[in-house]
């Protein structure tokens, strides 16, 4: 019993010390933005690329004098919590964010975490930006979650349609890991493909995430000779192995996925075999990246040694939060103000060339504006680099 109170006191002291440390450093008042996601264990790559892009942007803002919201210029501090991909931890993380007085949180990275933190977020007035696709999170009566990227049921149809028209694709096969997120993505991808008139020749082959040899998994799929093989919700670790196994089995058709991938990982893991692999990316390909995006990549690389292309899709959430707060400073303490501003908010997209705008969308998918409008950039891997195949919009 004594132990508990000692722990309480100890942690209170720790928090106090940390808070003082940050205040001592900065001349500006500090605006804290949270991150709850997975930064250790098998799925660490998802959360780490996310956390690092937030930290890169925050350091950049602070170095150049801070971010002005209303009359006050703030330094941005990112408070990160590692949920170990465990929904129980994710709730604890969200509670921690509430405790720190944070109203804007990026994450969690997976479906069950995003669903589990909903009660906490709604009770404590926190807007959160998960990278999870279930529609229930974004449709009324839920109102505090904002989808931080393009969902696969939005990008999938765009990709399939493009490939049907441009490459004459008629048959499609799906393969997914036997976990919640990939399976849900496979089901919605399958529905989208069938709605477009594609014939699904194989859609029920699954694999364990710890598979080390995909040849036996892929053999029956390849036998069905699809024109397009979709790797539903594939993790960056599995993608190169799946591509390599499929090609080595003699598969000649197209391969695509609706998640973001990293060029370096594909280069090392599959080399030239990954040529022609289609994935969803952000704004870093030379055709569309603005100077600001180029600088972001440079700063990220300087800070952490190596860039991760998955961050291209994850650079936006923080930017949206800050820009929306700038549009309505009252939202800093009150997320209801934030929600109102979301309906009308519009600002130039700094990461893309041209006149792309940042605004909230999602009316057709969710019936309310609960998604950030990021360009749907579809990339193709060619000789070690991503090239932009086409860019589309989500409404």
């Amino acid at each position, binding site marked *: 019993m004594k132990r508990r109170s000692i722990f*309480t006191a100890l942690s209170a002291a720790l928090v106090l010390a940390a808070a003082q440390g940050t205040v001592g450093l900065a001349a500006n008042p500090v605006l804290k933005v949270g991150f709850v996601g997975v930064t250790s264990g098998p799925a660490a790559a998802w959360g780490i690329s996310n956390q690092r892009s937030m930290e890169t942007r925050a350091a950049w803002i602070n170095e150049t004098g801070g971010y002005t919201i209303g009359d006050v210029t703030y330094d941005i501090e990112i408070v990160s919590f590692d949920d170990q991909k465990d929904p129980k931890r994710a*709730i*604890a993380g969200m509670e921690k964010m509430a405790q720190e007085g944070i109203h804007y949180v990026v994450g969690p990275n997976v479906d*069950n975490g995003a669903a589990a933190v909903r*009660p906490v977020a709604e009770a404590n007035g926190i807007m959160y930006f998960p990278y999870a696709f*279930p529609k229930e999170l974004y449709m009324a009566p839920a109102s505090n979650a904002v989808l931080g990227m393009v969902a696969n049921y939005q990008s999938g149809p765009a990709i399939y349609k493009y490939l049907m028209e441009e490459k004459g694709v008629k048959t499609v096969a799906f393969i997914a890991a036997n976990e*919640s997120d990939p399976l849900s993505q496979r089901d919605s991808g399958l529905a989208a493909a069938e709605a477009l008139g594609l014939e699904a020749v194989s859609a029920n082959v699954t694999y364990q995430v710890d598979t080390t040899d995909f040849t036996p998994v892929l053999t029956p799929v390849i036998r069905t000779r699809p024109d397009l093989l979709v790797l539903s919700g594939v993790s960056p670790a599995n993608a190169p192995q799946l591509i390599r196994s499929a090609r080595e089995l003699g598969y000649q058709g197209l391969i695509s996925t609706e998640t973001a991938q990293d060029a370096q990982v594909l280069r090392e893991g599959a080399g030239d075999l990954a040529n022609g692999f289609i994935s969803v990316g952000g704004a870093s390909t030379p055709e569309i990246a603005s100077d600001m995006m180029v600088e972001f990549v440079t700063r990220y690389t300087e800070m952490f040694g190596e860039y991760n292309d998955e961050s291209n899709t994850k650079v936006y959430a923080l930017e949206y939060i800050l820009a929306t707060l700038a549009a309505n400073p009252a939202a800093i303490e009150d997320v209801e103000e934030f929600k109102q501003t979301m309906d009308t908010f519009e600002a130039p997209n700094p990461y893309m060339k041209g006149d792309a705008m940042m605004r909230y969308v999602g009316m057709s998918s969710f019936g309310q504006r609960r998604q950030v409008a990021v360009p749907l950039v579809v990339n193709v891997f060619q000789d070690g680099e991503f090239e932009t195949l086409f860019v589309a919009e989500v409404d």
Partner: protein
Amino acid sequence: MTHSGMRRTLALVVFLVSVFWLIPFLISVSGRWNFYFTLTSVALLSVASAGVWLTFYIGRINIGQGAFALIGAYVSAILVTKADMSFWISLPIAGLFAGLVAVLIGLPILRLRGVYFAMITLVLTEVVRLAALALPITNGAKGIVSIPLPGELSILGITLIPDFSTLENPKLAFYYTACILMVVCYGALYRIVNSRLGHLCRSMQQNEELASSVGVNVAYLRVVIFAISSFFGGVGGAMFGAIAQSVYPSSFVVKDSIDFMLNCFLGGLGYVFGPMLGTLTLYFGWDLLFELGRYQLLVYSSVLILLILVLPNGLLSIRLNRMRSLRR
């Protein structure tokens, strides 16, 4: 006897006062509201860990508690969302169902011992996860979401438990509920260990053949113990589902099963309250190291290894050593 009895009563009173009064008081003074959830988790996880500890007591390494927690969470969620049942009635049903599954699975697999039993229970966790993905009633990969908060429980018009959604602070309500569950569970555990059943268990832990030869119905006993153990797991899991208001196949996975076992080891296999202390240290420890950022796991694991090096028989063995030296 009276002396140690008095000490025991005193310890119990101190414990209850700390859990139900001191901790809420400290939290309200310090304003660290988020500790409620963490401590609620600790209470619930220690209920599940208590089950694992009980299987250790009959000499079985149980790495399958995650399976029963998941079963409990699903049973409660399905009853609440599809049959409109009150959560409070679904809670014991979830435990009983988990216990029933344990009887059916336990009959064949409890013959196994040592690492073989450990292994088969580990596989069981994965089997239940995959079954939850494949079965239609569990809603597969999409999970069961938007589960309502526990409603009112009343008998003859007298409200025993208020509707959680009308409460100003459901966090506190969950904390008290979890703590009551924990106290009841450890009370039951203490009773079992100090009863004839506990005596028989100890004899099984030492030598099953010998126990069997002196007339102990070993097969019956171990199934009963395994069922009680899984009942604890099911109840803990169901309660978690109510807090998260959602259940997914990945809500309890192999990692959770292993964690439940580690809680028992860390607290000490020889002490009834070992799993509680082990859960507190392992689960709360992670949260406390939150400020360390990327070094969190490094420090966490280093401290864990140091603890094992110093106290290889569990945290509570400190007390044992001291008492031994006193006796001498």
